[in-house]
């Protein structure tokens, strides 16, 4: 069977951004903000996110998004403390 029968299998870039839920203490961000203050930069509401990027094949952007969402729930994030967003785009050559 040719790949054609499966629909167009394409490569996609996937990007998962994982942040702490609103109101959760972020010790890393607090430390960064205090360090910036040492250099006399006055900033506020500092936060950090974890960014995980990879490439994968799929039949459509939606199918890839569903699979990445499943990855987030099973491994990449802890639902007790994390929020996440997913971005899928056709792989740049």
């Amino acid at each position, binding site marked *: 069977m040719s790949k054609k029968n499966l629909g167009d299998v394409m490569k996609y870039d996937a990007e998962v951004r994982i942040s702490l839920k609103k109101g959760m*203490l972020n*010790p890393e961000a607090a430390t960064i903000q205090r360090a910036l203050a040492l250099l006399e930069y006055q900033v506020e509401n500092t936060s950090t996110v974890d960014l995980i990027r990879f490439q994968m094949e799929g039949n459509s952007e939606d199918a890839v998004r569903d699979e990445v969402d499943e990855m987030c729930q099973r491994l990449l994030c*802890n639902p*007790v*403390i994390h929020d996440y967003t997913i971005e899928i785009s056709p792989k740049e050559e």
Partner: protein
Amino acid sequence: MKVGIIRFPGSNCDRDVFHVLELVGAKPDYVWWNTRDLSDYEAIVIPGGFSYGDYLRAGAIAAITPIIDGIKDCVSEGKPVLGICNGAQILAEVGLVPGVFTENENAKFICEWTDLKVESVKTPFTRLYKKNEIIKMPIAHAEGRYYTENIQELRDNDQIVLSFESENPNGSMEAITGVCDEEGLVCAVMPHPERASESILGSDDGRKFFEGIMKFR
């Protein structure tokens, strides 16, 4: 009594636990993470360490290994399971105990002796203590700050096992540093009872955690 000590790449308190289990008369055995069948064992201890380098989150990768299914079988058969430090983080990641142990409030690795209150004596590991007894055991972790969305449920079900007594070094919610499942069979504690099981090491307050397994059932 055969007790399985679970080993992951990066476990490093496994031999201490082995030593103390022998002291209290158990027959400990090391079990590698890819083992699925734990039916030989009457109790399980997941020791501390840095499984899989703490990548992603402490305990997150250990939580998806085949042995976790074996541990779940043990729980459904009524066998006690104790997670210490990284073992506690793993049990929380799996969801066998509620909540998470996440980055310390001061973003530092904290290694020190702590005074602890035994809050629940319904677990096999704490049943030889008196309720509200104050004991001394060390902590050694960077991700030990306890957080849960369901604190009232924990209180109602007597699922808070240990709390920091005088100070709250890592910023845990209500100073909680040990929790259990509803039944009390699965127990997750950040402090190290195996490092406080011989008076020559400064305290033997933790020894009852292991003696409690022995006299269970």
